[in-house]
């Protein structure tokens, strides 16, 4: 027992969730959607679904993709993706469906739009500017010699 004492708090942390009443643990009692953790039979469709999942944002854990997250809602989103891909929808159609529900927020794929175009335009402008400055400097040095 003496040996255990330093780890007591750790033990409490690990086992405390098991001691909560049944109502609190009810969330995990509902099984996840059928295709949350089950792969599609067609490997090509499964690969397409997985590629898409990696670029869709989990609603609950907003910095993870639904492929990375174990949240129940991420499992249900994976189910939607797999079922829709299996029904013959293209990955872009599935992405468009979710964007029509949640806006651009749901997608990790960069899109050029009215609000994001400066992100794409500014680097190009900077490279052009840098090129111009360098060209003028090199040109001037050539004149001086």
């Amino acid at each position: 027992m003496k040996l255990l004492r330093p780890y007591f708090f750790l033990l409490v942390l690990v086992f405390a969730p098991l001691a909560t009443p049944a109502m609190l643990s009810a969330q995990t009692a509902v099984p996840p959607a059928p295709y949350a953790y089950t792969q599609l039979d067609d490997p090509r469709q499964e690969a397409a679904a997985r590629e898409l999942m990696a670029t869709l944002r989990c609603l609950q854990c907003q910095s993870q993709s639904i492929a990375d997250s174990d949240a129940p809602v991420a499992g249900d989103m994976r189910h939607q993706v797999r079922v829709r891909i299996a029904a013959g929808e293209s990955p872009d159609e599935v992405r468009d469906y979710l964007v029509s529900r949640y806006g651009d927020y749901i997608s990790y794929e960069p899109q050029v739009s009215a609000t994001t175009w400066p992100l794409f335009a500014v680097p190009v402008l900077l490279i052009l500017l840098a090129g111009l400055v360098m060209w003028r400097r090199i040109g001037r040095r050539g004149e001086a010699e």
Partner: protein
Amino acid sequence: MRRLRISLWIIVALAASLFALFAYQLSQPKDDFVRSAMVGQPLPQFDLEPAFEGRPGLATSDFTNGEPQLLNLFGSWCIPCRIEAPQLEALERAGATVNAIALRDHSEDVARFLEVYGNPFARIGSDDISETQFALGASGVPETFVIDGSGRITYQHIGIVTEQDVPLLLDELRRAGSGS
């Protein structure tokens, strides 16, 4: 030499304004809400089984009777849903029709939740795989939508309905009823 100095100051000013922009943006409160893109759109099609024996299930057609109604998303496992339960009852007492969708839930758990925290709901549909949640563009529970008499979503309230939100939602229901 003077031209060089002026251009150096321009660079310093540009860098300073960039940092000022960072400071401003970082001091703004973060908005974690993922809003539905379905506000203003007709309700998606759904036809849900009853979540427990005490109330009928819920379908899109229940929202096209000409009366504006509320649609609440909850779960017996959701702690904030317990906190907003008295406010949903207050809305019902004020004359609002409150419907609900129970997400990822068991009928016994729903029955127990309603017994303890009250049941202001006219209809409760059950969504075990969050399909209707995604169709509505809802990011989680609790969430409350205002639906006008023709079945169009006019307002989305994300999170707990607090006491201050009750008159706000009643106002949104009136606006949905007046067709504006």
